[in-house]
Structures are given as structure tokens and as C-alpha cells.
């Protein structure tokens, strides 16, 4: 990566050149400053709140790690973490798998590719609240898919995951994957299209079959896209509050609570802001554990020229 901050002709340092040196940093400064305040400043504020006895609104009375103690002895927090694990792993894996599959299939020179691509992508355009409500309807045993199947003749069909405490989280996976796998597909499709055609021609000349070409050459070349798909899916999975709220509202019972749901409920509904802040801090720590390694590899890669 060429460094252009030095003047083109050495030795001549005019005010214009000085301006050119300082200007980039000036341009970047507002974004940087705003990020420091509105991201890191607020994170620090939350960290501080997690060690106070804040209830409905922030209070500044220090109580140490009491809130963290309460957090870990709350069965709903354990449920939330487990649900995040189940939801996160399934959501990321299935989105990636479907995204990759659809991308590969769409890559095969089809005339209606544009239309199909839009069909797979459009769910992303619909807000989570609407998605959750629609799927809640569809998966409702009395109203939705069940009733449809019965009226079509398959009276033995039952799909009651939505109301089953053990299975409800998987219905959220279904709705979530439906919503975002199109976007993952788009990422993979772009990646596929970026593969150098010379390599492929060489492989064809060497007699490689289509599946072999995909498996041995193309997919390994797409490692960066896998990483991006992972990060974007992980980000969406962790933030999943609207979807849960609309589909199950944490139910049946408290079986579909997630950390984002927990944070919102404790902070805004139950007036336990200190506890909510503690859960937020743990959530942030989890997110960092996933994101920071990615950023590190991203930065190292960036320096390559």
C-alpha cells in the first residue's frame, strides 16, 4: 500500500504540503472522535453502571460485583447463554451452508438468475418485527402450517415446535435463517465470481470434474468470504432481540430468552439496570472474543503491500 503522505518532490515543504499531511487526519478525526465517545465512552459508562445499584434510571452508587453475582445465579441467564449457543451455532452454520449452496447453484449460468437472486435476498428487506409476526402465524399449531396441512389432507402432520419449550428456539432459527441466508448467498456469489478464470480453465484442461473443481480449488479460495459470512451472521445472531420478541416473547415459559432479550428485559422492563448492564458487559466480552481475532487477521492482511 503506497504511502502518499510525503510530498512528491523531496525537500520542498510548502504550507500546501503541510496541509496535505494534516488534512487526512482532520478528515478522519470527527469519525474517530464520535466513535470514541458514542461507542467506547458509552461502553465504559455501561461498565460503570454494571457496578452500581441502578434500578429504573442510572444511579452512581457503587456496589462492586454484586450485579455479576446476581447475574450468574439467575437461571434465565444460563438459559440465555445456552440459547445463544444453540441459536448462534445453528444460525451461522445453516445460513452459511444454504448461502453457499444457493450461490454455487446460482453460479451455473441460469437465465433467471436475477429474479432468483432477488427472491432469496428480499427477506432481508423486511424488518425483524414483521418477520417474527409472520412466522409466528405460520408456525402456530392452530392457525398456520398445521391447519393448512390438515385441510390439504395430511391429518397426521403436526408441527408444534413453537409451543414446545424444548423446541421453540429452533423455530427462531428457522425464521432467522430465512431472513438472512439470502445475504450470505450474495456474499458467496460475489466471492465465486471473483475467482480467476485462468485457474479454472487450467483445471478443466487437466480434466477436473465440476465437483472436484469446486471442492479442491474454489472453496479453499473463498476463505476470506467464509470469514466475513461468519462475522456478519455472528453479529446478527447476537443482536437478535426483535425476532425473539415478536415470535415467542421469550416463551413458552422462559425457554427462548437470549442475552439481548435478557438485557432489554432487565434494563427496561424490570427496572434492574445494574443487572442489565452486567449482562451487557458479558455480552460485549463474548462479542469481542469472536470479533477481535478477526479484526487482527484483517489488519495483518491489510498491511500486505
Amino acid at each position: 500500500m503506497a504511502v502518499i503522505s510525503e510530498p512528491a518532490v523531496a525537500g520542498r515543504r510548502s504550507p500546501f504540503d503541510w496541509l496535505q499531511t494534516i488534512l487526512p487526519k482532520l478528515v478522519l478525526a470527527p469519525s474517530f472522535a464520535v466513535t470514541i465517545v458514542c461507542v467506547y465512552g458509552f461502553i465504559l459508562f455501561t461498565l460503570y453502571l454494571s457496578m452500581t445499584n441502578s434500578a429504573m434510571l442510572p444511579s452512581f452508587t457503587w456496589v462492586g460485583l454484586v450485579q455479576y453475582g446476581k447475574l450468574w445465579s439467575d437461571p434465565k441467564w444460563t438459559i440465555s447463554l445456552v440459547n445463544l449457543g444453540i441459536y448462534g451455532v445453528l444460525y451461522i452454520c445453516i445460513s452459511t451452508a444454504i448461502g453457499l449452496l444457493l450461490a454455487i447453484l446460482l453460479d451455473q449460468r441460469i437465465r433467471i438468475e436475477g429474479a432468483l437472486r432477488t427472491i432469496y435476498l428480499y427477506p432481508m428487506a423486511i424488518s425483524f418485527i414483521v418477520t417474527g409476526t409472520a412466522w409466528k402465524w405460520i408456525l402456530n399449531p392452530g392457525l398456520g402450517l398445521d391447519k393448512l396441512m390438515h385441510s390439504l389432507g395430511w391429518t397426521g402432520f403436526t408441527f408444534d415446535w413453537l409451543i414446545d419449550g424444548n423446541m421453540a428456539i429452533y423455530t427462531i432459527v428457522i425464521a432467522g435463517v430465512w431472513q438472512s441466508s439470502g445475504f450470505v448467498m450474495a456474499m458467496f456469489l460475489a466471492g465465486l465470481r471473483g475467482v480467476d478464470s485462468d485457474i479454472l480453465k487450467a483445471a478443466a484442461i487437466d480434466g477436473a470434474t465440476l465437483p472436484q473443481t469446486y471442492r479442491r480449488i474454489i472453496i479453499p479460495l473463498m476463505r476470506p468470504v467464509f470469514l466475513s459470512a461468519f462475522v456478519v451472521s455472528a453479529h446478527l445472531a447476537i443482536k437478535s432481540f426483535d425476532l425473539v420478541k415478536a415470535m415467542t416473547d421469550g416463551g413458552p415459559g422462559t425457554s427462548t430468552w437470549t442475552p439481548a432479550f435478557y438485557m432489554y428485559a432487565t434494563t427496561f422492563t424490570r427496572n434492574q439496570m445494574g443487572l442489565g448492564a452486567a449482562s451487557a458487559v458479558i455480552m460485549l466480552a463474548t462479542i469481542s472474543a469472536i470479533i477481535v481475532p478477526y479484526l487482527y487477521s484483517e489488519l495483518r492482511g491489510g498491511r500486505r503491500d
Partner: protein
Amino acid sequence: MAAVTDAALMVPGPRSTTQVALRWLLFAILGVFALVYLFPLFVMVVTSLKTLDEVRAGNLLSLPQNPTVEPWVSAWSTTCVGLTCEGLKGYFLNSILMTVPAVAISAVIGALNGYVLTKWRFRGDGVVFALILFGCFIPFQIVLLPMARTLGLLGLASSTPGLVFVHVVYGICFTTLFFRNYYAAFPNDLVKSAMIDGAGFFRIFWRILLPNSVPIIVVTVIWQFTNIWNDFLFGVSFAGGGGAMPVTVALNNIVNSSTGVKEYNVHMAAAIIAALPTLVVYVLAGRYFVRGLMAGAVKG
């Protein structure tokens, strides 16, 4: 990248039956997926064209016996959002007034940031980028109250400019990411020769980079538009009153009212209306989206 298929097809000989069969299988799989993806939309559209009695009586997929656009009319101009019974149309304007400036401003800032971070390196710029990027991942609930205080201090509470400010602040991370990755792949020779010719910071940006940035601009616009238009949390917290209420908050008021008859047909119509601008943006610019992503928005 149909080069793979091209390569495969370059193998001499006629299309074998296996290949034809595989082709049919391909269409079958894609078709099944398409049906699954379209199913919820179909349910929503079909429901929005039925009368309320039909909704209660029938099942999900049955086509309306007496199709009516009355739910759509109601959703747009007469359904009640609180005490104002004028449908969604007023809030549409609020959403546009919020989304368009926010998208534009965050895109411009992201472009400039990406430009600086890739063409005007300085010590520590990697750290700066990383710090900005991490901002993409904070859950919004954390920033709700501190940001409320900040908006109050800035005199922007409960207003559209306030919402624009919030969305710009939390959109900068993604726009910077997209532009930075794109400009990283942009050839430096062009820039260097411009510098030698005496072009300055902004001239290079305006004359050289920006004209060649159409794919990534479209990508950024689509991503930002989707996220900002569909946002609910900031909308309800910072514009809970009637004046600046975006369409997502209004939709929530229609759909989630705790009592009263649930007019599912109107709700579905309202939900589709609220989603239309984003759907339109996706359809029109879908091609650019994939092309833009290819140009480095999310590649590592």
C-alpha cells in the same frame, strides 16, 4: 464467474444425459428454495386481500373469495395509530426525511474515511480503523440512555435531525469498512500520478476515486437504507412522539395494540407497505449489490 460452467462445457462432446438430468435437478432445488422463501410473502399478500371474516374462517393459503383492496386503503390512509386515524402515509415522509440524509451523510463520511485510510497512511491508522470497525458490533440497547442524554444536550431530542445524527454515528463503522476495502484494491498509480501533477487531497478524491466508486456506493446505500429504514429501537426511543415518528414505530402501533379487534388483513397490508421502499431498493439495485460486494466490501 460462470467460467466454471464454461470450463466444464469446454470439454468436447455433446451434452450427456447426466448433464441434462443434473440441470433439471439444479432447477428443482432452486425452485424448492424459491417457494420456501416466497411462502411468507405469499401468505402476507393473500391475507392482505381478504376480508376479516375470511381471515378468521379460512386457512393460510386459501385465495381470497372476494378479494378487496380495502385493507390496503385502510393501512395507507385510515387506520389508527394512536388517536390519529390517518394510516401510514404521514409516517412515510418522516422515515424518508430520516433515512435519505442519514444514508447520504454516512456514505460520504465513510467514503472519505476509506480514502484516508487507504491512500493517506499514517502511523496508527490500523488502530484507528480497528477502533471504528468494532463499533459495528455493539448492541443498541447499551447506547440508548447515554445517547438520549447526548441528544438532549445537543438540543436534538425527539426530532428527525436527532435520528439522523444517531443513525450516522452508528452507520459510520459499516460505511467506512465497505469503502476502505474497496479503495484498498484501487490502483495507486492513478493516485500517484495525479499527485505528481499537483492534485491535492480533495481533488484526487473528487476527480479520481469517486467517479469509479459506483458499485460500492450502491452497496453502501442499500445496506444503510435497509438498516436505517427498518430500525425500530432508535425510532421509538428518540422519536416516540408524533412529529418525527418513523414508519416502523407507526407499524408497531398498528400491529401491537393490546386490545381491540386485530385486523390481520390491515396489519399485513401495513407491513408490506412499510417494507416496500426497501424491497424496491433491493430489486432495482440487486445487480449492483452483488457486483459491489465482489469489489471487496466483505472480502477479507
